[in-house]
């Protein structure tokens, strides 16, 4: 171990809400602009140095890049991480509101995160008669 680290700088005053990633973001339902469920937040992608690198003093704070979903659930529970190209991201800039659920400002349909839903819908459900029938 190295010598005791220098005392941490004070937390800068920020405008806006302070969120706890584990409490407020992880495992939350993600709804799109119209309130249709998209997915749950399975993991978060944070910018900054890699896990096994030392953090240089004075480097900028990590920034939340994207919400992750899909196979990261398996790696989150059992360990490890998929390669960056395999991650299914919902860019943070698409997020409009964080409350009991995470609301996006865009429609969910064209997102990467909805690709399985789109595929199942187009290839399987739409081919069964009555699939587009409104039950009300």
């Amino acid at each position, binding site marked *: 171990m190295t010598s005791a680290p220098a005392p941490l700088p004070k937390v800068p005053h920020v405008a806006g809400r302070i969120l706890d990633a584990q409490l407020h973001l992880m*495992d*939350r*339902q*993600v709804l799109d602009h119209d309130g*249709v*469920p*998209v*997915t*749950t937040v*399975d993991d978060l992608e944070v910018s900054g140095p890699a896990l096994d690198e030392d953090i240089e003093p004075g480097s900028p704070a990590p920034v939340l890049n994207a919400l992750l*979903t899909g196979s990261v*659930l398996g790696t*989150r*529970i059992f360990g490890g991480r998929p390669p960056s190209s395999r991650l299914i991201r919902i860019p943070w800039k698409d997020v409009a509101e964080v409350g*009991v659920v995470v609301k996006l400002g865009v429609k969910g349909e064209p997102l990467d995160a909805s690709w*399985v*839903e789109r595929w*199942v*819908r187009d290839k*399987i*459900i*739409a081919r*069964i008669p*009555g*699939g*587009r*029938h*409104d*039950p*009300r």
Partner: protein
Amino acid sequence: MKRLLGVALGILTAIGGFVDIGDLVTNAVVGSRFGLSLVWVVVVGVVGIVLFANMSGRVAAVSGRATFEVIRERLGPRAGLANLSASFLINLMTVTAEIGGVALALQLASSVYYLLWIPVAAVAVWLVIWRVRFSIMENVTGLLGLTLVIFAVAVFLLKPDWGSLAGQVLAPSVPQQETVWSYSYYAIALFGAAMTPYEVFFFSSGAVEEKWGVKDLAQSRINVLIGFPLGGLLSISIAVCAALVLLPAGISVTSLSQVILPVAEGAGKLGLAFVLVGIVAATFGAALETTLSSGYTLAQFFGWSWGKFRRPAEAARFHLSMIVCLLVGIGVLATGVDPVLVTEYSVVFSAIALPLTYLPILIVANDPQYMREHVNGRAVNALGMVYLVIILVASIAAIPLMIVTGAGS
């Protein structure tokens, strides 16, 4: 007047929808082997399900979120996944048992071999889930299931000795030809049959489907407080029928055909017609509920869009997962396994999985972030803790008892 009709419909649907193949088989087996000495378990089970259905309905109505959505948020993905795996597998077993039950009842009515009815029943279940509106589905199967009241009617027509019946109920004892172990095993089975886990998922998701709000809480409370105990009385009358006709003849129930014999004895062919309609309706309704529960639990854990109020094209993975469940159910039944055996195992495994289902409900119902001012009161919490202990005891004791008694034989 319209309000009153609505309330009555809710109660009647709750009564008719209470009994499923697990209740039918387990109560009949218990009545034929133990007489009325296990009726107290049904009472305990009914109070339990009233308590937890109430809580899960309140959670859904107040927070607008269904159970499994909240399980993952509150307990984390690991506990949620463990919960999901166990609940889903046992749900699947129950779906298989219910479809088998529909097929067996149709065989009794028509003499056509039950294996031929299985695909028919499964396709019918799928069609209703695919096209029929949620409220219509609930009301029709619930009302038709009311014909099971013929069991209670048959009890009266069989002219029992009420005094000795009351004695058996109030002073339970292990019958001579059974052991304490099989008595305890069937107590757990009966408990699992009364407190079916899928009921909680279905009730809370159904509340979201029908878009309940705080103002609907009163109606839901009435449905549960009046409907479920009356449904429990129906279950008990199944056991009483078996105890009156089958127990004295030394018959232990191993097939659905034996369950209906007491009704035929007391009420003749008309009674037989009622009971067959009732069994088909009740098991069909339960098949719908358990299949939907499978879809609900998966979709709510993974965050898919779900709900019968959406077009199938807008809830594609939800519907696909239910289709797969039904196909698996058909596959299992096509191997020729006895559906009654599947039922008997499904109720015991339901009892084993109960803690996984009820603990999250108890936790969330106490969480002010979701429930605001409608969190559990002290009395409800006290009762909830008592039941948690009962459920844990039943769950832990189930497998050793299953081994010791050879699954009750």
